[in-house]
């Protein structure tokens, strides 16, 4: 006991001494703390070395990027360094907290660019590939990933006229790529081919690589002929035990803008319009200013040899037209595991996407603009379920439907479930040889419902209600195997060889049922309540098809001392849907480049890489059975008219078989330059390309009754046959330049400009089965009155998308238009619907914790037919029924009284400049160890547009939405174009450990 007390005394004494000495030491040194973040991702950086300059005293950051270090009074600066990041030095001064962001070291990092079936160091790329990282994406409320790139990539056009949340953008790489085959690029998400781009949420994307030329896309064969867009999602960290949760959430407020001006009720009546005695602003009645919310949560982390990321995205967007909504729940899971010292790698990728889209009849937008402004919404001021039209005001006039009633009495809903499952195994047999196998299932299930109330005047009224339900399932199975060999085959010459095989099976099934005559409205959930199941408005049908595409491919890459590069590939494809002699196509590509700055002294240039490429890609038709003679359904035939049980459905060939159907091929040459000046301060690329598309697939008029030119002994049953009908050639020039971090005082500015100049596609051959056709006409304006004159004539030897019609020379005093001719034989070319150029100018400003991004974007050279003017601006007889539009381009003295017929009067220049999106962000310094990033931001989309076009949206129209997206009728703004919104956004991002 005594002994113990003695020990205690000694201990206390010793402790007191210790405390005293520490206190004494403290007078000379002090402790500083801080956090180190990845400057781009705002993620904590563990393991960063923090050293007092000129000493060996230092520490490393912990898992959360935090550090704690003692400094002495003479210490000048701290040096932060980490592999792959630029070393950063900061003066100590009196500061005690250091929140440091390290920037990636662009010089030292190999920038991996995703190419087909692999990645390549950016400097080795010899074809036209553009890579856009997350920091360069458009900022705003984008429901579709393609919109992140709008205006960012030269040669890539992303358009979505109007603002329907359910409308998908049209994506075109280097303009028109086909007539009747697939027009939009192939999407490859984390190495998983196909599916829809919808299946990945914009929030989840790390980088997007755009393979623009045929030499890059050729490795994907037929599915890549319209270009390839490779999407890489955010990945988990491989750092052991590291986990991160990022939450991004924002709200938006949307308002309708740019409504086409119409006459006020008073002006309408003054012009002779029928006065129903009320005053209604119909567009006020059908639009709303919705507040929408989007939330994204990403969870990522890793253990030893394993990393994962999972994300959930929820978007719920009401449109600016009442009754339109899109709700999406998107889930993604990615798991990587390396075994046997990471030589055997497993990867599982799952995407699940549920979308619930509620829409209205697009015609409601048209009626909201031109419905009689003196008509009331309700006949007697309110809804009345006992009235034949539910109390709504309706009149039996031609093409005259109350838009509010239409929105409320017609329902459309589409539920889409997408599931993509990809499983991948890779194994390094040796350090030089890697084999891999992948199996992908891509499933799309669509369930669509439509119902028309008994009181809906347009459809339901005469049939006592109509309802339908439709399913459409698509299921694609892909098996891929590759072997990759990498070696330095002699001094300085690196060689990579890829061999692969791929087999794809496409399955589609659908089922539709519809009935009419309901005792009471029941929507599409009780089709059995419909008393009529035969005849107009009813349906009972199903279909299925299946096609197989087998491929083998090889690619060799050579890199000599990082100066000279060569890539060559070939892919063979065999498609079941062609005639048996034409099933296989071979699609080669070769590209080469030299970085002269590595071989010569190029002065200010730190990179000067010239490259050239050539490639051929193939396209297949969208339906697999066009080569075959197939009997489909005809009329119902009672064999014995007196016996109701003798009915059969007749059989007819409803297509003309074409066993000579073969691959459409795209041959493309590309010459490019990648440059860097002043040590990478200025970077950019230039590309010139020329494209020849041959044997274009299209459903072309051959004529009924004549011997089938492709199948002797058969006779055409229908006018049109799917055939290889045309060739065209087009070319373009693409330019991109960025200046990194221009310092304007304490503001850093990174501007980036890109533009594209298009040579519009010229038709060099037209015809099929030994027949030369002079032209293909398309684009009928429509009812009322303009049902029979296509306005876009695609003529042999001329450009695609030429408008033809009479020219308006003037107006008589009485308001009659004086046109050059009424005879279609004398119509002349009035302009072209395709653009001659696109540009984008994006800007990033950083000031302390503040940042500002905006994009100015535009297109020029394209004409647009303004359908609203083409039908509704003349003060003709019909203008007593419908309201008239009165735009900047409407002639008013005198008013035109002629019956509306197409002429150049209604064609307008579509050139525009738009402040597409703008966002201001503020990074709040975090005091919590658990919060690594806290960012607040606010933005706006479509702030203003400068254009002469007087319609809804001057955006390029690549296809005709009213004609099954026909690419041969571009440039028509249809009257059901959804109103254009301006979107205000407020959001925050927070990263939690």
């Amino acid at each position, binding site marked *: 006991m005594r002994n113990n007390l003695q020990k205690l005394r000694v201990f206390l004494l010793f402790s007191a001494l210790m405390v005293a000495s520490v206190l004494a030491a403290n007078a000379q040194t002090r402790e500083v703390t801080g956090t180190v973040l990845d400057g781009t991702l705002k993620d904590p950086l563990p393991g960063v070395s923090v050293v007092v300059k000129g000493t060996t005293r230092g520490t490393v950051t912990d898992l959360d990027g935090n550090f704690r270090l003692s400094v002495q009074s003479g210490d000048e600066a701290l040096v932060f360094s980490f592999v792959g990041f630029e070393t950063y030095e900061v003066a100590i001064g009196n500061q005690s907290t250091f929140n440091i962001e390290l920037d990636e070291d662009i010089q030292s990092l190999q920038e991996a660019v995703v190419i087909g079936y692999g990645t390549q160091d950016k400097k080795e790329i010899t074809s036209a590939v553009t890579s856009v990282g997350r920091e360069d994406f458009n900022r705003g409320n984008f429901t579709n990933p393609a919109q992140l790139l709008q205006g960012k990539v030269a040669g890539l056009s992303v358009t979505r006229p109007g603002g329907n949340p359910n409308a998908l953008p049209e994506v075109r790489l280097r303009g028109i790529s086909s007539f009747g085959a697939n027009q939009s690029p192939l999407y490859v998400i984390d190495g998983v081919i196909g599916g829809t781009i919808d299946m990945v949420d914009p929030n989840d994307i790390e980088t997007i690589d755009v393979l623009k030329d045929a030499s890059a896309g050729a490795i994907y064969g037929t599915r890549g002929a319209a270009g390839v867009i490779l999407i890489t999602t955010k990945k988990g960290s491989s750092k052991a035990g590291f986990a991160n949760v990022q939450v991004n959430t924002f709200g938006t407020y949307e308002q309708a803008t740019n409504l086409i001006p119409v006459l006020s009720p008073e002006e309408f009546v003054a012009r002779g319009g*029928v006065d129903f005695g009320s005053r209604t602003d119909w567009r006020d009645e059908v639009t709303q200013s919705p507040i929408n919310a989007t939330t994204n949560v990403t969870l990522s982390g890793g253990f030893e040899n394993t990393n994962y990321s999972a994300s959930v995205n929820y978007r719920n967007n009401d449109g600016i037209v009442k009754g339109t909504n899109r709700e999406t729940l998107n889930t993604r899971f990615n798991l990587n595991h390396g075994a046997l010292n990471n030589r055997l790698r497993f990867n599982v990728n799952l995407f699940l996407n549920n979308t619930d889209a509620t829409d209205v009849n697009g015609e409601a937008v048209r009626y909201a603009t031109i419905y009689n402004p003196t008509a009331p919404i309700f006949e007697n001021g309110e809804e009345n379920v006992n009235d034949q039209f539910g109390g709504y005001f309706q*009149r039996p006039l*031609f093409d005259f439907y109350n838009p509010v009633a239409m929105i409320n009495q017609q329902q459309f809903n589409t539920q889409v479930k997408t599931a993509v499952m990809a499983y991948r195994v890779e*194994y390094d047999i040796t350090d030089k040889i890697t*084999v*891999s*196998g992948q199996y992908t299932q891509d499933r799309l299930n669509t369930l669509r419902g439509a119902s028309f109330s008994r009181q809906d005047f347009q459809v339901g009224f005469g*049939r006592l209600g109509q309802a339908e339900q439709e399913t459409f399932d698509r299921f694609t199975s892909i*098996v*891929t*195997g590759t*072997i990759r060999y990498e070696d330095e085959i002699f001094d300085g010459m690196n060689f990579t060889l890829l061999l692969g*095989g791929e087999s794809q099976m496409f399955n589609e099934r659908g089922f539709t049922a519809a009935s009419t005559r309901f005792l009471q409205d029941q929507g599409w959930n009780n089709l059995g309540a419909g008393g009529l199941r035969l005849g*107009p*408005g009813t349906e009972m049908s199903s*279909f*299925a098809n*299946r096609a197989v595409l087998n491929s083998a491919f090889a690619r060799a890459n050579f890199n000599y001392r990082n100066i000279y590069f060569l890539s060559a590939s070939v892919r063979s494809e065999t498609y*079941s*849907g062609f005639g048996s002699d034409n099933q296989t196509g071979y699609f080669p590509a070769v590209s080469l480049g030299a970085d002269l700055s590595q071989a010569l002294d190029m002065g200010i240039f730190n990179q000067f890489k010239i490259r050239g490429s050539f490639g051929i890609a193939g396209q297949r038709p969208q339906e697999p*059975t066009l*080569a075959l*003679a*197939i*009997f*489909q359904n005809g*009329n*119902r*035939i009672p064999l014995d*008219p007196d016996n109701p049980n003798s009915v*059969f459905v007749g*059989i*007819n*060939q409803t297509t003309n078989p074409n066993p000579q159907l073969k691959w459409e091929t795209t041959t493309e040459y590309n010459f490019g330059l990648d440059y860097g000046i002043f040590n990478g301060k200025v970077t950019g690329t230039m590309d010139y390309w020329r494209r020849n598309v041959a044997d274009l697939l299209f459903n072309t*008029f051959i004529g*009924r*009754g*004549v*011997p089938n030119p492709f199948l*002797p002994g*058969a*006779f055409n*049953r229908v*006018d049109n046959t799917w055939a290889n009908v045309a060739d065209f050639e087009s070319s373009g020039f693409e330019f991109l330049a960025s200046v990194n971090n221009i310092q304007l005082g304490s503001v850093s500015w990174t501007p980036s400009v890109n533009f594209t100049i298009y040579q519009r596609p010229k038709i060099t051959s037209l015809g099929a089965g*030994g*027949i030369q056709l002079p*032209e293909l006409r398309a684009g009928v304006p429509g009812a*009322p*009155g*303009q*049902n*029979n004159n296509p306005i876009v004539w695609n003529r042999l030897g001329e450009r695609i998308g030429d408008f033809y019609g009479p020219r308006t020379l003037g107006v008589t005093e009485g308001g009659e238009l004086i046109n050059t001719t*009424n*005879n279609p034989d004398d119509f002349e070319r009035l302009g072209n619907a395709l653009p001659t150029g696109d540009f984008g100018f994006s800007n990033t400003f950083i000031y302390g914790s503040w940042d500002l991004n905006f994009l100015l974007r535009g297109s020029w050279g394209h004409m647009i037919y303004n359908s609203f003017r083409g039908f509704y601006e003349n003060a*003709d*007889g*019909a203008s*007593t029924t419908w309201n008239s539009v009165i735009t900047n381009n409407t002639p008013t003295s005198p008013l035109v009284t*002629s*019956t509306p017929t197409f002429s150049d009067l209604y064609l307008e220049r579509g050139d525009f400049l738009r402040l597409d999106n703008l966002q201001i962000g503020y990074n709040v310094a975090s005091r919590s160890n658990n919060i690594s990033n806290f960012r607040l931001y606010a933005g706006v989309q479509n702030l203003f547009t400068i254009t002469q076009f007087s319609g809804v949206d001057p955006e390029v129209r690549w296809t005709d939405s009213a004609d099954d997206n026909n690419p041969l009728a571009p440039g028509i703004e249809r009257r059901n174009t959804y109103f254009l919104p301006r979107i205000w956004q407020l959001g925050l991002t927070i990263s939690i450990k």
Partner: protein
Amino acid sequence: MKIIKNIKIALASGLLLFSTSACWELEQEVLTGIPQENLIITDELIEVLKQSAYGSVSVGGSWGGHDGIYAVQEVSSDEMAIPQKGADWEDGGIWLRTHRHTWLAVDGPYNNAWGYCFGIVGETNNLLVQFPDIPELAAEMKILRALAYLWLIDNFGNVPIITETSLGSIPQSPREEVFAFIEESILENVDVLTRDNVRINLNYWTAHMILAKLYLNAEVYTGNARWADAERILDVIINEGPYSLAPNFFANFVTNNANSPENMFTLPYDSNNNGGFNIHQMSFHYGNQQTFELQEQPWNGYAALEEFYNSFDDGDVRKGSLREGPQFQSDGITPVIDDAYDGDPDGPELVFTPQINELAPNAFRQAGTRVNKFEIQLGAGPDLNNDFPVFRYADVLLMKAEAAWRQGNNAVALQFVNQVRERANVPNLTTLDANTLLAERGREMFAEGWRRSDLIRFGRFNQPWWEKGTSQPFRNIFPIPLNVIQANPIYQQNPGY
């Protein structure tokens, strides 16, 4: 070490096997529809295929439908017009041009008419290639093909003769050769056809009717009249055939007209099973939806010319073929109101008047009498159930009368004309001339698609009438449609176009 190596090899070969064994079969499967080679040939199948070929005669947009062969027969004649009401029915001017005989090769309805006829030709030829060994079927298909060529020779004149043995591009044949081809097709095959009154298919009698139509128009088609041959063939139908006039004129046109003793060859239109008969939609005013409780709003297009309306005597029961006067809702009391009153002197209450103020651009929406010949069932859909009579016995009688009159045999001619007039409750004629005969055909055959052909045969087609000037004789056949000429560069455009 050895074990690891073995694992490596096993994994590698496994992956290779996985990637190479997974090629699917490349034979294109057909999951919807029946590939030709998989058809199981039974009597029932052959019957269904035959009826499916007839289906190409009653397709939408043909007889009784808009924008095709029927439309150009009617609108180019003095029976009907489609007046333009502002933007409504302007349609690029095609209906005005059709009325004024200034149509162009590019105008769609002529292309549709051509395609319709050649659709029948293609369908019949496909069946002839497929089943060459069934004589009854082959004979019937050749006669059906001849019917299509009757319409072709009448409308387009010089057309390619495409038979089951044709290959490649077939040049046009002059009208005389087309005439000979039709004549030969009938004469060689007519005896194989049934003499039963099958109505919805061709038989021995209706094959004769095709031949009679051909002979009656022989002078137009070839320059050589064949009146006696026409009369001889018509006599076969009259003396040996199973047909008679229905006591009630309108019994031929009611919703359930399948058993009329007068209808010889009809298109079995059906609102549920076989759509395409849309005359009520084409003709009636939007507001008449309430009159008939129609499932869809009518289009307010086809209206009769005033002069044509006036060619009926008041007591003529056939005058009911045209709807005139105030229109009521289905209760028969409440007037139909046209709210966007456009200045029509009748005011907003819907009244059909025989007079049409102008053809274009601002015809009153209520102007002109409408096609009321075919019964419109209460609650009808856009497709009527009435069967459309292509050949009708009353036509046989009038043709017989004409053939006799052309040969100077007025007594016989009057006898047959008056059979038809008696049924219509109008006094017998005592004299006949071209005007009275043509007018009688007009009253009897209104809206049945023969008027254009009749006007040409009587030499009246080029004469002026309301809102139409004198037209050139080359207008007696239509141009080869622009699409067709473009797709077949060996074709010659008809003279004058």
